[in-house]
């Protein structure tokens, strides 16, 4: 009786060691001053400001979260920061003007080359550029389906979502959405995709089985420029940043009905949710701050000063 329990305990300890304790750090790209701000999510204090390279915008974790990747638009490269030591460990050429990206579970980075009408596939370990896929004009938002079989890329000046298969890297559909599509978010089951459209002021909901727009709403918020879009872990609530409207729109993910809006800072852009969905972090690009929103009360509970022009945010929790 005791032997199996002992074995189980040993296995649990080993598993615990393998799954490293999260750092609880929030990482924020500061587009205007070429740095990444590192915030302790428990104290809301800035721990470090890491010079990373020119025009940092898109930001994301490696699958094991050991590294943070940062798109450096004016260096045509991806900067790599060690999540624990906060050192920039390398800079990988990425093709022209990388803006946003998504990291596939296989470790490859799918990124948009904004000024080159391409999406690139980068292996950050070997540094090899594995593929370049011609897409529309000003490619931006990138998303990987939960099963890893599809990558979506928006092209802002072609108002389209391109559906790309993995590993073939073939475009199998081009879905016209509202003007200037910025970001995409998949539902956990991969069935639905939410797209923010900055100029049309819309959120479009795509059915990935039919590959069509099944619902779209214009945000009924004055001056709203939808940009960031994240889905709550329970899949019921969609948070959309609204740029110069300075609020986060809270939508019913099923109907896209506007439930409420949460005032944050000026030109709210990138968004990130804590793993449990209780905290939403917002980049306020003109205020040079990050707001912390309590998603139960829909109120900003803290404002943290960061670098110039905060653009994107992720959390290791």
């Amino acid at each position, binding site marked *: 009786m005791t032997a199996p329990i002992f074995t189980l305990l040993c296995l649990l300890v080993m598993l615990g060691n393998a799954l490293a304790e999260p750092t609880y750090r929030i990482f924020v790209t500061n587009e205007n001053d070429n740095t990444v701000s590192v915030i302790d999510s428990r104290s809301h204090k800035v721990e470090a400001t890491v010079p990373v390279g020119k025009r940092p915008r898109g930001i994301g974790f490696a699958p094991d979260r050991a590294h943070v990747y940062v798109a450096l638009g004016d260096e045509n490269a991806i900067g790599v920061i060690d999540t624990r030591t906060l050192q920039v460990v390398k800079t990988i050429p990425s093709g022209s003007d990388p803006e946003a990206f998504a990291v596939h579970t296989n470790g490859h980075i799918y990124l948009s080359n*904004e*000024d080159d*009408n391409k999406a690139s596939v980068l292996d950050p370990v070997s540094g090899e550029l594995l593929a370049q896929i011609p897409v*529309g*004009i*000003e490619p931006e938002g990138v998303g990987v389906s939960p099963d890893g079989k599809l990558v979506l890329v928006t092209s*802002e*000046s*072609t*108002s*389209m979502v*391109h559906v790309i298969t993995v590993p073939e890297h073939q*475009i199998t559909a*081009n879905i*016209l959405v*509202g*003007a*200037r599509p910025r970001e995409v978010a998949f539902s956990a089951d991969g069935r639905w995709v939410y797209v923010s459209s900055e*100029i*049309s*002021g819309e959120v479009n909901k795509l059915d990935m089985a039919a590959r069509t727009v099944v619902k779209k709403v214009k945000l009924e918020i*004055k*001056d709203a*420029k939808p940009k960031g879009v994240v889905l709550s872990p329970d899949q019921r609530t969609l948070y959309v940043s609204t740029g110069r409207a300075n609020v986060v729109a809270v939508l019913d993910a099923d109907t896209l009905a506007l439930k409420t809006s949460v005032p944050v800072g000026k030109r709210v852009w990138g968004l990130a949710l804590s793993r449990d969905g209780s905290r939403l972090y917002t980049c306020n690009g003109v205020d040079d701050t990050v707001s912390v929103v309590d998603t139960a009360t829909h109120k900003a509970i803290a404002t943290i000063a960061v670098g110039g022009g905060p653009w994107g945010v992720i959390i290791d929790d």
Partner: protein
Amino acid sequence: MRRGQRWLWWLPAVLLLALGEVTGAMAEEVRVVYVGPAEGSVWRGVALGQHEANILGRFTGQTYVVQQMRPEELLGKELATLPAVVLAATDAETLPKLSAAFASVGVAVFNLARDDDSLRQACLPNLLHTPPSARMKADAVAQWQKKHAGAAVEAWAWHPDFVKYAARDLNKRFRELFNVPMDNDAWAGWAALKMVSEAIARTQTTEPARILAYLRQDMEFDGQKGVSHTFRDTGQLRQPLLIVQDGKVVGEAPVRGVADIADLDSLGMESCRR
């Protein structure tokens, strides 16, 4: 058996050729007629617009051809095939004539270069104006001067150093293609083709009257100036303007604090009623 195999060896090549034919045939050719100088800013803007329309068309099944014609070739003659739209960088007198020549068949005629208010107030059903009217520019300057008394400024549709929104990207594309800065006229030319290609991609029709209807009623155009652009009943494109002082962009109109920044109709005359 051997002969059969030899024949099969050719099959993939034949199939590939056939496929090329089919995909080539699937892309519908869209003919846009351009009347105006085949050099200079407006023309360069049209050329960039055509290039970008063809990138969009690659995904939605169109190729865009711009055919240069003289006004005499269009006026008082029946064309064998109708163009999807007519783009005109001509004098003010020619524009109503072009409009009249195509009004009955519903072909949109774009004014790319004139700022005359009288052309807007004529409210011709198929005449659309991409550059701001003189009155729009005057209103923008007046708004700015309300806030900054005595400032000597001008209002422009575009500026090669404008970077906000995605202006930086458009300016970069233009400069890379032509090695000259993108100005007001170039923006007007670019915008027209861009709007037309979007109308065709979204409606999946090249029927001129349906393109015109989409442009007037449904379009929400991203002119890379931060808000969507639509057409007024007068045919004038609603758009924000840039306030320029000593050659530099110092602000945008509608001017914050003087007008509602979202109220593009605070610039110029919005309706056909005098």
